[in-house]
């Protein structure tokens, strides 16, 4: 069945899709957003107190992808047989309107400018030979200065709480001394530091580091954004990650953009629409629209459009490009093709300190985006020369609220018993008197870490699953081990009665059974060279110029920072250039 034509089709109703839909309707285009999950509203998902039912929520994955319909296969190395990821654990892609932007925590960073040109910066500082064999280190082909207005716009839409370091070159607050200059203040003051974060702040400063309060898309006060959308203030209940915020305080496409978009007659949202492929014309240089499966009727529908925006979750973007034949699939043996190349993740390890029983950290308190961090070991902020690795990690106390079931499953940590009275006593001590410190680090790209179509397994719609070939590499393990070693002085300074330092072990393989982070990246990266990037600096497909691919899929490396702020800025950056350049003269915006 053909459903006619719209000016632009947007695939996926998460942050990137909502931003592009808002921008393109503002430009006067008729826009149809296709979302394979359900529509979602705070009125329903945030209906208190059912909204904070942990069993139904984060434990049974209420807002996450339904793996019984489609998933990925995973293997560590080429030569192994990949098997399907059947239980959500290591990473948690979202599903439904809002996408991962509905269940995220809210840590809202910009970018470390050096990370945007990491290859050039590493070579300039340490020489070409510093880059290990097999590491596909690349630049984004966009600068922080170019992106700054779009970081600023995204923060104003998200209602981000934070403290600046400099604004227009002048010291403006006690924010991150390593943060790049800003054109304007955060729209809201920083979230308050919970007790554990304030202890970390003092201790980190005492040992010579530069702590700052995390920028958070958790509103520290009531807020009205430029679209007129309103947020309530966060009450530190701790139900951010995995939940729809019942206080309307955590930024989401649902709270911050869709209220305005839904009023626009040029905007159409179709849910339960699973896109099977982007349709191309006969010479595969132009997209004509998409074919989707209407999950309510089980019928295929084709919808035509002049412009197709692929803005689903990172690996869905890559999957859809491969299924549609957009760009050349990456082949790690021949080292050709770009789609699936530079698949990246993040390294994250969580260390714990126990404080005297007079110190109540009360881990149930928290906010997903709030906390205190140091950037002394992130990006190019320290001397890698004697250390011999590329990359780095911010380090932080991000007390996001430990929910009872998750805390019990995680256990009391240390050498405590795993059951019985000893377990309970230790659990009480940990829940009341401990705090965690994360090393939330980068992950570089490697020639033999990539995405392609699985040769064996198909999804419920008879399409091949996406295959992940991924494991930890020595460079990133050594980076993590070094940064974790730098946490130890903070633990001592805080007066910890005991502490455990968690780090990646040498030779450790990626284990899908344990939660790491949902910050997957790459696979359809941006860059200046069509041989090593799938999209140009405007996130336009090199091969099919009326297709734009927006998301963390564009990241050439996994950065130390949380990705959402960068995704939102890239979405606004791309949309701005679609509006100002592409729509006036459709075609390639960068000549290959």
């Amino acid at each position, binding site marked *: 069945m053909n459903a006619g034509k719209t000016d632009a089709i947007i695939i996926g109703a998460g942050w990137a899709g909502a931003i592009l839909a808002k921008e393109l309707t503002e430009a006067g285009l008729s826009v149809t957003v296709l979302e394979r999950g359900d529509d979602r509203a*705070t009125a329903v998902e945030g209906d208190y107190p059912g909204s904070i039912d942990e069993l139904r929520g984060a434990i049974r994955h209420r807002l996450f992808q339904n793996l019984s319909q489609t998933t990925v296969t995973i293997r560590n190395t080429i030569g192994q047989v990949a098997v399907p990821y059947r239980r959500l654990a290591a990473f948690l892609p979202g599903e439904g309107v809002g996408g991962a932007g509905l269940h995220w925590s809210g840590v809202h960073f910009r970018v470390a400018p050096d990370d945007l040109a990491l290859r050039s910066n590493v070579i300039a500082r340490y020489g070409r030979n510093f880059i290990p064999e097999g590491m596909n280190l690349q630049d984004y082909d966009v600068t922080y200065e170019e992106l700054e207005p779009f970081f600023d716009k995204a923060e104003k839409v998200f209602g981000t709480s934070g403290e600046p370091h400099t604004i227009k070159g002048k010291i403006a607050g006690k924010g991150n001394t390593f943060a790049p200059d800003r054109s304007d203040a955060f729209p809201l003051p920083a979230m308050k530091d919970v007790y554990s974060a304030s202890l970390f702040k003092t201790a980190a400063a005492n040992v010579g580091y530069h702590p700052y309060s995390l920028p958070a898309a958790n509103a520290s006060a*009531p807020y009205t954004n430029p679209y007129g959308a309103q947020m*309530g203030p966060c009450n530190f209940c701790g139900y951010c990650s995995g939940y729809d915020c019942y206080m*309307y305080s955590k930024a989401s496409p649902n*709270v911050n953009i869709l209220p305005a978009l839904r*009023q626009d007659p040029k905007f159409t949202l179709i849910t339960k629409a699973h896109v099977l492929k982007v349709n191309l014309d006969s010479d595969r240089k132009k997209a004509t629209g998409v074919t989707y499966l209407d999950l309510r009727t089980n019928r295929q529908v084709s919808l035509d459009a002049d412009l197709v925006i692929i803005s689903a979750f990172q690996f869905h973007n890559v999957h859809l490009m491969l299924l549609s034949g957009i760009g050349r699939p990456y082949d790690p043996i021949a080292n050709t093709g770009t789609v699936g190349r530079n698949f990246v993740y993040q390294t994250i390890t969580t260390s714990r300190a126990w404080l005297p029983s007079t110190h109540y950290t009360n881990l149930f308190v928290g906010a997903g985006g709030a906390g205190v961090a140091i950037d002394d070991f992130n990006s190019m902020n320290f001397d890698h020369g004697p250390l011999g690795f590329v990359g780095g990690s911010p380090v932080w106390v991000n007390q996001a609220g430990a929910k009872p079931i998750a805390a019990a499953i995680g256990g009391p940590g240390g050498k405590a018993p795993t059951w019985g009275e000893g377990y309970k006593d230790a659990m009480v001590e940990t829940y009341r008197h401990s705090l965690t410190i994360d090393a939330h680090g980068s992950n570089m790209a490697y020639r033999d870490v990539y995405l392609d179509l699985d040769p064996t397994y198909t999804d419920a719609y008879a399409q091949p699953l996406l295959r992940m070939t991924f494991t930890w590499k020595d460079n990133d393990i050594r980076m993590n081990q070094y940064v974790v070693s730098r946490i130890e002085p903070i633990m001592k300074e805080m007066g910890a009665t005991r502490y455990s330092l968690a780090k990646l072990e040498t030779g450790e393989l990626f284990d899908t059974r344990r939660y790491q982070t949902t910050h997957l990246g790459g696979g359809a990266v941006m860059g200046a060279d069509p041989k090593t990037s799938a999209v140009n600096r405007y996130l336009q497909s090199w091969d099919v110029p009326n297709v734009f691919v927006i998301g963390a899929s564009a990241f050439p490396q996994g950065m130390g920072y949380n990705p959402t702020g960068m995704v939102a800025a890239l979405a606004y950056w791309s949309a701005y250039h679609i509006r100002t350049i592409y729509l006036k003269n459709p075609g390639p915006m960068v000549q290959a």
Partner: protein
Amino acid sequence: MKHRAFRPATILGTAALLLLAHLPQAHAEGSDNPVARGHYVADASDCSACHTVKGGPPFAGGMAFKLPMGSIYSSNITPDPTHGIGAWSEAEFARAVREGVRRDGTSLYPAMPFPSYARISDSDMHALYVYFMKGVQPVARATPAADIPWPLSMRWPMSVWKTVFAPAVQSAQQDVNRPFPDPAIARGAYLVEGPGHCGACHSPRGLALQEKALSGSAGTLFLSGGAPIDGFVPTSLRQDRRTGLASWSEDDIVAFLSTGRNRKGESFGGMTNAIVHGTQHLTPEDLHAMARYLLTLGPSHPAAPAWHYDPAAAAELQRGDATARGARLYVDHCAACHRTDGKGYAPVFPPLAGNPVIMSDQPDSLVHVVQSGAALPGTARAPSAFVMPAYGRMLSPQQIADVVTFIRAAWGNNAPPVDAATVAELQKSAPPPVLDGKPVPLN
């Protein structure tokens, strides 16, 4: 407040200015087009709130009004010649709107606020007629017959009612032309008393359900608060210090009428329809005019003490003392949004301290919002919708009585307690729980 239509009057004397001020016209921004002007008058008159069923074709009628003696239904007022008003002359249309007389000479039920619409000016009435004839799509759908049993179904007593209680059009129009301090206030009075028909809900009614006062010239009963409608109690819109608008500024009133929310409170119940269908579409100039007029209405209870914030309840809660009746329930269910100090986080979460709805002698509205929840839909100028959950799902009548008593007593509100029997009685008239309504606000 400058009014562009009156600018030439500045060179005239005061008397002439007031005279001009009494020729109110709806002024859809920059429009001489009578269809557009009529559309604006229809918005100002909130026609669609009753004549358009949610999700149905505009103005096709059929909305039920459940009365003790049976149900009546709003009419099809589209220009369909058979089922609507397409065959009506302008005079017949004006007679129905202003006098409640149908084309066949029988009477309309005064659910139609013709005692207020009697004040609508000739030019607005003309624009309204043109709009309904040319700007609305005809819909061939019969209006359901009222299911009121005989003899109550006879409409002739309505003629008697009208003779006694409804104003003659001439005197209503004369009242519109009474003197006002300035043209904006005159314009505001016209909108509030006439098309806006605020008094239909916010003025008290007599034994025969007639409004006891139809304009500001008829004494302090006008807009002094009405009887419950669908369970909710319309508040006083006069300068009553505890139960009226004494603490609201002009901008507060404008924000409320424009967006359903301000720093003092949020809309619920029938007022939300009035805002969504009506006032949100008015120009800022007209909203300011309405606000300025409302601010001229003196208190109906001038002896009532002013509200002053009392920090005692907040201090108790903040030192962990939740022993007051209902305090623990308040902390567990309400304080996350409305705060222990009762000040809320306006405009998202309204303050409870000093809120006229809460200090009313009648606890109906507060009880209903607690037990059924409330949904504030988005408007054009404030697109976000907000929903308060329905606590009737988890709290017993006793618990609701306790928490409502706490809210009514705390922060200087000093309103009388509520007992479980009252809550149980009010449950019979409770609106459906908020998420049972369709569509659910998406936000």
